[in-house]
């Protein structure tokens, strides 16, 4: 995918280098709810950056502050070296935005909506190119009312792309989509990412963040509680694998001695969530037999036993003690 060359508009020098997005000390409260509670963040150019967290973590407020739709109570926002206070008109031309709940008029066609959005931008890509990028060729003359959820979402993405943005914001791009449509949208983001676009997205799906993002910030209660590449974050849990087991009878729960379990070589951490024991484990093949023998020594027999590769979900659980999907 080739991008048309940027027109050499006279921008301050630092606008062409430096981070694509820089936030410092960002704060925002609505009535008595603190939605964003002191966020510092740099996103580099060409990076696909994910804000991951449960609903209500402050992801949408954060991204809408970046998009210039919400004014923060405190903190500094800088996009492409520019601020909303001084360069709003310029920034609007240079960012692409996909909001969470936009419903386009049902009686307009994809082409008509894209032509409308294209008219707002001084530079950008052609309608044909946008339709091709969003893989909506077959539906270009279809009215919005006849589109599937995935197609509507791709249309929203196309509207964000039509101005050939330097910075693309996607707020929960796959929420509410069926697994196939999600995969389709992931492919699209993958393509944009490999074309070198800077993308900032929010999601509450850990697999999405893991799959799409170069770096991820995990948010909870308005704060960033972890930041790094998905691999770094997963490694921070202390093991590549997670072993989960449950002890059948209730009285047995108290008899599990966590110290004995964490003493097993290869076990890095232990926690209990709703009767389910979780161990972070480095090497499955040597550690699992030891777990079984340790449990047998305690006189316990697991009623369930399974393992999986560690994911960002485990990172979130490890940090907050809660599951992402519970929210």
């Amino acid at each position, binding site marked *: 995918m080739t991008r048309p060359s940027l027109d050499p508009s006279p921008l301050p020098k630092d606008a062409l280098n430096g981070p694509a997005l820089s936030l410092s000390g960002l704060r925002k409260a609505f009535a008595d709810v603190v939605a964003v509670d002191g966020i510092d963040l740099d996103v580099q150019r060409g990076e696909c950056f994910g804000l991951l967290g449960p609903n209500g973590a402050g992801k949408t407020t954060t991204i809408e502050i970046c998009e210039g739709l919400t004014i923060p109570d405190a903190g500094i926002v800088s996009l492409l070296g520019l601020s909303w206070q001084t360069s709003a008109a310029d920034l609007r031309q240079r960012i692409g935005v996909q909001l969470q709940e*936009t419903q386009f008029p049902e*009686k307009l066609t994809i082409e008509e909506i894209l032509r409308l959005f294209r008219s707002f931008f001084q530079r950008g890509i052609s309608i044909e190119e946008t339709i091709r990028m969003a893989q909506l060729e077959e539906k270009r003359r279809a009215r919005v009312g006849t589109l599937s959820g995935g197609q509507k979402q791709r249309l929203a993405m196309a509207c964000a792309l039509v101005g050939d943005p330097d910075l693309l914001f996607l707020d929960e791009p796959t929420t509410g989509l069926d697994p196939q449509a999600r995969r389709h949208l992931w492919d699209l983001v993958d393509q944009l990412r490999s074309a070198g676009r800077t993308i900032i997205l929010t999601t509450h799906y850990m697999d999405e963040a893991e799959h799409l993002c170069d770096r991820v910030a995990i948010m909870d209660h308005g704060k960033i509680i972890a930041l790094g590449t998905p691999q770094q974050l997963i490694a921070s849990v202390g093991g590549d694998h997670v072993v989960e087991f449950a002890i059948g009878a209730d009285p047995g729960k108290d008899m599990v001695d966590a110290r004995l379990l964490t003493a097993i070589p290869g076990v890095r951490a232990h926690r209990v969530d709703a009767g389910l024991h979780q161990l972070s484990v480095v090497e499955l093949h040597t550690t699992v037999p030891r777990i079984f023998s340790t449990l047998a020594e305690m006189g316990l027999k697991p009623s369930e036993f399974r393992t999986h590769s560690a994911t960002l979900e485990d990172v979130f659980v490890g940090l907050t003690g809660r599951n992402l999907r519970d929210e």
Partner: protein
Amino acid sequence: MSSLSESSLYQLTSTRFRLFLREPEALFWVFVFPILLAVGLGIAFRNRPADVLAVGATSSQLTNALSGDKGLTAATMNQAEGTYELATGRILLLAIQGAGGVAYKYDDTNPDARLAGLLADRAIQRSAGQKEALHSSNDLVHETGARYIDFVVPGLLGMNLMGSAIWGLGFSIVEARQKKLLKRFVASPMPRWQYLASFLLTRLVLLVIEVLAFLGFSKLVFGVPFRGSLWQLGLLCVLTSLSLSSLGLLIASRAKTTEAVSGLMNLAMLPMWILSGIFFSATRFPKLIQPIVQALPLTAAIAALRGNMLQGMNLSQLGAPMAVLAAWLVVPFVISLRIFRWR
């Protein structure tokens, strides 16, 4: 952006047009409904020829005398038949030939029968040789411009301009806000004034079609008069539409749901439907509330339209209603711009 079709104002306006034309209900309310209403009222209040009253007489001599009056149609019958016809309402009066004169049999509590009595007596007296003591003649009024339909057409025009202006802006804007489309627009580089301007441009184009269709129909079918200048009438229509669009914008400036804005629009329009003199003169309301009645934009609009169409007044004679309309154009517009909720 070189060509017109790529400009955002053009795109916004043509989008508004498409959305309007793809909404069959809107087409009905704007174009068809006012014509149907004019047809209905035209039929209900049409000027019927004066009724001819049926009477009976017991001799052919009397029948001839009665038939001499244009307002009566007479038949000969015997007294028994006549009494039966009277009882069944097929005749209003029976003239009975007596030895020394005529006796009239009718129900004096029925106004038509009383009228038949007067006409029958006059006809029979005349045929018996009575002379007029004083010459009199009738000058009958069936002139266009003084009929109810002539009065009501400018009223309906005003009502239609109000409905399409307020609905056209109010509903569409709030729907876009509810569906987060407004928020999506302000996240793009769209110039905000162009979004509002696209509504006004669409309104002005539709106005031409709407006014031509309705007034053209009224002229062709009812022969409604246009005594004032046509370009001034057009100007009054534009002023009316813009004033009420400004009110529609104000109504739509904060509401978050289409349900809420529908309520607000009806709340704003209801007093005008009643008070502004669409179907009868607004001056019929008590003196006490006249200041309110006269300050309503629709009252001013209809007064100006009637002044132009029925009385042939020019703009300089319509200063007062035009000032009211101008105030309704400026004040709500300024307030709306300040309080408009873009997300």
